[in-house]
């Protein structure tokens, strides 16, 4: 091929530019320490690099969330431990009070101790971490519990506190302070407001729990997919029979497991679907007691005002205090019909081994000498308990009363098969048709049982918190591990191999200098040099 000066000059310029370009690239990589300085450097890896960088950044956030969660959890745990201690003290106090050797004044002093404990519990319930009150749900920037006289008011909400600790995985990190025992969740909805549960189940049915969906149709409502709380096991008769008045659904319990549950569906529109979860779970401090239409909003606490707290530790302590104050023996006899105006005396309590049995029944006197016992019920006043009083006799007995032996009419519950045994009541002087209800609730003794129940449920919650803590700690380790690996792969993707680059750099420098040198030599030589 014929080579002209222009060809040489052109090739040389191109070679120099090319070599310089390579040098500049290598130099840039050496200077930044990265092989990826712009998307076109390695487009096949850029997406991966971006996602690794994103993941690393989130990992930092997840780590922070974990730390935050752990501090929440540990405070949850320690405040529940303190609660346990208080309950323990309360239990000891109750045992002292139940011994029967204390005078009224002694019991009153014990009652004051319990009252003080209630204040202590309020303080514990207002535990905060970094300005956030741990038992207040998400409305947590103010102390949620307030004692006003003998009622406790709650101004938090029922939302759980969740932390995302893995991508897309949220875990609850608080033990609920106050629960409602149910939740209404939207599945499909175009409406702005949620249905409101306006009445909980009747007390005797509180053990029944489950999940079902309500759909609003053109013509009314359908209740579908009733299951256990696991969301899997079907319960065909969870909520089958219900009546609708206006927009309010009442599950009536004729063939249902649930009963008395009332849900106000007003404000919803056709096609809306809601999931109703009834778990009747007690919060650490019990239930929010009052349900009023319009008050309940799962997410929007601004309308929740002053929930009175019920059925929890506070209730138990208040009851214990009151029982101590009243020196409650555990038996109350109230007249239903009493022409004679006699106040019957308890002559003897139940046998000690039967002391746990509670319940109520009605005694009716028919002249001249017939005593009937009816309406044997559990303490809730609803559930029948026919074996409460199986055998009883009404007999005249000589007993020592008011400083002399007198003949009195004594009703003795003694029969085998009775739950009550050994109970004796003085019924002297009744008139025809008199009716008395006898309520036996165990008195201070039953407070001991209630406290034990509270301790048990507290323990359950602590176990839950404990396992979440272990879970989070394991995750922290895992994240640390993952971080190392991700940093490594980030480095593999974008970091420059300095040694390799340095060698390339020297090679490219040699090439560049050679191209300059050879070009300079060739261009200088011409026939002109040899012409005279």
């Amino acid at each position: 091929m014929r080579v002209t000066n222009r060809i040489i000059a052109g090739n040389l310029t191109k070679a120099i530019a090319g070599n310089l370009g390579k040098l500049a690239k290598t130099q840039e990589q050496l200077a930044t320490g990265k092989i990826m300085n712009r998307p076109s450097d390695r487009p096949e890896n850029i997406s991966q690099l971006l996602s690794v960088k994103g993941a690393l950044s989130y990992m930092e956030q997840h780590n922070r969330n974990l730390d935050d969660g752990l501090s929440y959890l540990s405070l949850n745990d320690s405040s529940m431990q303190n609660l346990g201690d208080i309950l323990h003290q309360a239990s000891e106090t109750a045992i002292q009070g139940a011994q029967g050797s204390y005078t009224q004044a002694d019991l009153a002093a014990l009652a004051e101790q319990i009252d003080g404990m209630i204040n202590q519990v309020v303080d514990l319930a207002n535990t905060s971490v970094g300005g956030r009150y741990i038992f207040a749900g998400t409305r947590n920037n103010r102390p949620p519990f307030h004692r006003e006289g003998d009622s406790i008011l709650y101004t938090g909400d029922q939302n759980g506190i969740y932390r995302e600790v893995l991508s897309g995985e949220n875990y609850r990190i608080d033990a609920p302070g106050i629960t409602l025992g149910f939740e209404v969740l939207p599945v499909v909805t175009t409406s702005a407001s949620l249905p409101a549960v306006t009445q909980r189940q009747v007390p005797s049915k509180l053990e029944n729990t489950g999940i079902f969906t309500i759909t609003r149709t053109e013509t009314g409502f359908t209740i579908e997919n009733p299951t256990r709380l696991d969301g899997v096991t079907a319960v065909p008769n969870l909520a089958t029979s219900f009546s609708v008045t206006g927009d309010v659904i009442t599950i009536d319990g004729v063939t249902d497991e649930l009963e008395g549950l009332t849900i106000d569906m007003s404000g919803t529109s056709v096609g809306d679907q809601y999931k109703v979860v009834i778990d009747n779970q007690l919060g650490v401090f019990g239930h929010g007691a009052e349900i009023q239409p319009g008050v309940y909003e799962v997410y929007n606490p601004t309308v929740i005002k002053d929930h009175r707290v019920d059925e929890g530790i506070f209730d138990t302590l208040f009851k214990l205090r009151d029982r101590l104050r009243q020196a409650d023996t555990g038996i109350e006899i109230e007249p239903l019909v009493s022409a004679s105006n006699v106040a019957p005396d308890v002559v003897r309590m139940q046998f000690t081994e039967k002391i746990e049995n509670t319940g109520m029944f009605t005694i009716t006197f028919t002249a001249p000498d017939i005593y009937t016992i009816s309406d044997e019920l559990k303490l809730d006043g609803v559930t029948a308990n026919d074996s409460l009083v199986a055998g009883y006799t009404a007999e005249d007995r000589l007993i020592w009363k008011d400083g002399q032996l007198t003949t009195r009419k004594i009703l003795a519950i003694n029969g085998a098969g009775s739950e009550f045994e050994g109970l004796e009541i003085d019924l002297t002087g009744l008139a025809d048709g008199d009716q008395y209800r006898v309520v036996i609730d165990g008195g201070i003794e039953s407070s001991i049982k209630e406290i034990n129940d509270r301790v048990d449920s507290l323990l359950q919650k602590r176990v839950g918190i404990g396992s979440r803590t272990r879970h989070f700690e394991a995750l922290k380790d895992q994240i640390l591990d993952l971080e190392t690996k991700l940093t490594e792969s980030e480095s593999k993707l974008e970091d420059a191999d300095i040694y390799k680059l340095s060698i390339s750099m020297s090679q490219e420098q040699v090439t560049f200098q050679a191209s300059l040198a050879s070009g300079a030599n060739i261009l200088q030589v011409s026939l002109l040099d040899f012409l005279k």
Partner: protein
Amino acid sequence: MPGTFFGLEIGRRGLQTHQKSLDVTGHNLANSSTEGYSRQEAVYSVTDPYTSPDLDSMATAGQLGSGVQTSMIRRIRDQYLDPQVRTSNKDRFYWEDQTFVLSRVEASFAEPAADGIQDQLVEFFKGWQNLNNNPQDPGVKASVEEVGVQLVSLMSYTYRQLGDIQESIVKPGTLPNVESGQLKDQVGRVNDLLSQVQNLTEDIARIYRVGQQPNDLLDKRDLLLDELAKFGPLSVVNGTTDGKPNGEVTLTYFGLTITTVPRSQTTFSLRLNDQEGPLYGHLELHEASVGKVIDLTAESGNTVMGGSLLGLESSRQSIIGFRDILDDIAVTLRDQIRNKNSAPPPAGTPDFFLGSLATGDYRVNEAVASDPSIIDGKKAALIAGIRNENMSAERDYTLEECYGLLVTNVGNRARGTDNMAANQQAIQEQMYNLRESVSGVSVDEELTRMIQFQYGYQASARVVDMMDEILEVIINRLKP
């Protein structure tokens, strides 16, 4: 018998011819660096001998040579290389013009090194997680708002920058007109080149008609045609009369035939389709009398057709695509936050972002900006969760993945174009070198020939000198 001064005449012819060659050599040397110049050569031929035998001619010993003449000055050029050079030209500039645009596009995305949109997106979602940790904290709410503002301004900035680059290629005026831009300038240059070619051809044809070869004008026209081929597909057919070139050419440009005789009045212009329908907004190349010549938008991926007009349109379409994706991310983020906030019970202020990048009013809701405490902290977990959600049922990737995809596309497009441009440049330079190898001026070669012609000239001068001496004898020394 030739005349007395026959020998002098031969000498004179030798002198003249070699002088002409020396002139041509000088012209070559002077133009050794001129773009598009083909080296020229004076073609020697022997003059008619003395004398053609006929009945009257004396019987002498053979014919007598009468010297040399320059029969023509030709340019040395391989006409068959030109179409290849032009093809390589359109292929090269289809890619090369794109690389300048796309490297600007790439520079608009500050990834992966600096704090780009990806980083801001991550920070944005992290802000919501922090808010979930402290749902009531007004400080955290303010920082969520602040990160939102940063995200918005970064996205808007990138979107606008891409828009500026897009408008530097084609800036639409009142439809269907194009107001300005590189493409419009190039079409203007095409028109200019075509009219120059027409003017030159008139001169060339005139010179051909008087039987001469307009070497320098032909070079000039070929150079113009080379440049014309940068912009689009060009084929050239040289006109002939009786098998000889007459200087006319017939061009086919973007499939449109342009003749020099009769002279075609060609004026190209750009139009944006303003008819409702699938072609709305398409960029079209129009010719004043013919109408639409080609739909540049539809053909923008046609690398076989090539040329920088299509190349620029192709990169413009890429930019439009990139902007659409960016806007899609912005709008999807806006809508998803609204959806989360509207789920019952709704937050008081459902919109965190308002507007869109496309309409140029993407912003953090003024209500939120003026009072961040109205952000509903209880929605924070849901909104932070958007990060892990697909953009929609059909687009089964998350916002961040979508952005990663966008950056990958930008990078791929920039690098692919760079590679193609480098390849095509190498090919084109190879073709140029081939042509240069034939037509280029080699200084050493010309110097060699210069010496050769110089000696030829000196020799002819010696002949004249010798003749002079002979005639001196005849004219001055012989005494009658």
